[in-house]
């Protein structure tokens, strides 16, 4: 198994993280030490873990019909959220009590989504078209 390890200098030390396993990380004084540590952790992880292949359910009627009609097929996330969800709160930039780690697990999350980058092209076009709003002055009745 080959993994991508991201090594980042941080506060005079080195942080090594496995891109595919966000919880697997190690910090050390030198780059080499950090890499040696992460290698050891990966070995331990590999010893106690197994890779299981899970079958995905068969296509539904509507999805099969879409495929027959030659329409674009869209992937659905394996882990679906529950039906009732509480929106997680946004964290404001001034809030020093919350520390956010780089969300590597979200890096590339929409790379297979055919609508994702075209949406940003549309956002650019809308910026070009938008007129500067003005405050309407009320006339006397």
């Amino acid at each position: 198994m080959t993994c991508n390890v991201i090594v980042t200098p941080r506060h005079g030390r080195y942080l090594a993280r496995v891109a595919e396993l966000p919880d697997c990380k190690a910090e050390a004084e030198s780059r080499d030490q950090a890499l040696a540590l992460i290698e050891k952790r990966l070995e331990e992880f590999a010893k106690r873990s197994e890779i299981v292949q899970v079958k995905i359910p068969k296509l539904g009627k509507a999805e099969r019909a879409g495929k027959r009609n030659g329409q674009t097929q869209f992937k659905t996330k394996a882990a679906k959220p529950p039906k009732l969800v509480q929106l997680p709160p946004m964290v404001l930039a001034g809030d020093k009590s919350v520390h956010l780690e780089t969300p590597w697990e979200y890096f590339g999350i929409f790379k297979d989504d055919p609508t994702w980058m075209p949406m940003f092209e549309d956002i650019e076009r809308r910026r070009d078209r938008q007129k500067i709003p003005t405050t309407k002055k009320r006339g006397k009745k």
Partner: protein
Amino acid sequence: MYLRDTHLIGHYANQHPTLMLHIQRIEWDEVGLPTPAVAEVLRGRAEFALKAAPEQVTWAHDQLWQTYVLIVRFKVLLLDEEAKKELKKLLRKFKSKKRYVDMMIAAMALAGDHVVVTRNTKHFADLLPPDQLANWIDDSPR
């Protein structure tokens, strides 16, 4: 703080390699999303979810949810009163020659002494001094 222009969210979720190199060099708390960018992305996803054909509707709503979950992984910077003052100054200076959302983000950068990270540096070049502009897509880290 580094303020991400909207399309940088796109490149993040599209796994852009140069962007990854830049992100490795900074603390995540130093990166913020300005509320105009949040509004643009959620508007795009929400419109898609509301207009999706029956075959795509569950997928489109799931993508809206996933996008929200991605956004809450960033710190969000509100367009506040100080930024509003800067926005009015920019509007007086440029009249209606500039793009409004660009001016909102530039005003937030001027008010808080932030750096705008964008690929569209030409749109911001006369709104911000060069040290408050960065292109993390076309320029590799030094």
